[in-house]
């Protein structure tokens, strides 16, 4: 078992603020694509053990119905994966992306839209976080895990019947929504155990500066 890392309350506060800045960049990227104001929630930071992940997943999706899931890995000083949940009607904002409201998009085009949006917000958020920590990371292409599936399938679709192959992860959760539109996005960034030592070192330096 790898060494478990703990973060102090002050370090978690610093991480929340860093994630806030990353989230701001992601919100700005989404707003630029949609041409409207995107509402941001306070990011949530928590250390997660793999043994508790199923319970956490069930809690996270308990009020959701059908969802779309995009998955995107990243590597470098920061390694892990981002999992983006988008509401069933995410592509209902196609008019904000330049399509006619009456225009019908086939499934392939709908998926492409969701992948593009996910990539845009994940990339902006992660690079914003990496820059604050003075660490590097690069993203793999996004991958559609599921399209309009019941939310209760969330854990099984991501991990199958197995536990993840890590003991501990740092989870950053950021949420976006639009006013008076059905669009919402819930992003979970899991930083791998391998990254935690470097993250802690960077955060410690920031706290001492």
């Amino acid at each position: 078992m790898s060494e478990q890392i703990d973060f102090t309350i002050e370090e978690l506060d610093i991480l929340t603020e860093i994630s806030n800045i990353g989230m701001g960049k992601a919100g700005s990227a989404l707003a630029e694509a949609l041409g409207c104001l995107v509402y941001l929630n306070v990011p949530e930071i928590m250390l997660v053990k793999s043994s508790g992940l199923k319970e956490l997943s069930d809690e996270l999706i308990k009020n959701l119905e059908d969802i779309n899931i995009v998955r995107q890995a990243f590597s470098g000083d920061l390694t892990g994966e981002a999992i983006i949940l988008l509401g069933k009607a995410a592509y209902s904002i196609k008019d904000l992306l330049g399509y006619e409201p009456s225009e019908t998009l086939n499934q392939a085009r709908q998926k492409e839209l969701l992948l593009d949006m996910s990539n845009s917000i994940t990339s902006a958020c992660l690079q914003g976080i990496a820059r604050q920590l003075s660490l590097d990371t690069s993203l793999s292409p996004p991958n559609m895990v599921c399209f309009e599936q019941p939310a209760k399938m969330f854990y099984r679709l991501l991990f199958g019947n197995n536990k993840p192959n890590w003991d501990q992860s740092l989870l950053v959760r950021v949420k976006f929504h639009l006013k008076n539109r059905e669009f919402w996005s819930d992003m979970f960034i899991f930083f791998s155990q391998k990254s935690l030592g470097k993250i802690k070192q960077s955060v410690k330096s920031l706290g001492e500066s």
Partner: protein
Amino acid sequence: MPYSVLIVDDSAFSRRMLKKAFPEKWEVDITEATNGNEALVALTSRKFDIMFLDLTMPELDGFGVLEVLKNRQDIHCKIFVVTADIQPKAKQLCKELGASAFLPKPLDKEILQKNLKQHGLL
């Protein structure tokens, strides 16, 4: 006489970084609040020359504070929004709601100084 300053941000680290960015010889008397509700309590209990206001906060966020203050004729202070939310529409909305300045995080000392001078606070 020192300027009376209210800092509103849920992050202790962020409040500390802001204070570090204040000009060296700027004489200030600082009060801190961790969310919009605490900020409104502070604003109704004494007069402040300037409020530094974060947007993304629990309970009552920065937009909520600005909306309340727009309807309060009895509370006057310069409002500098200091935020990670850098969307142009967020900036526009803050200005419409009465913010004097909109400063992106991480805060640049020189931009802060320039804005303080522009508003006669330095």
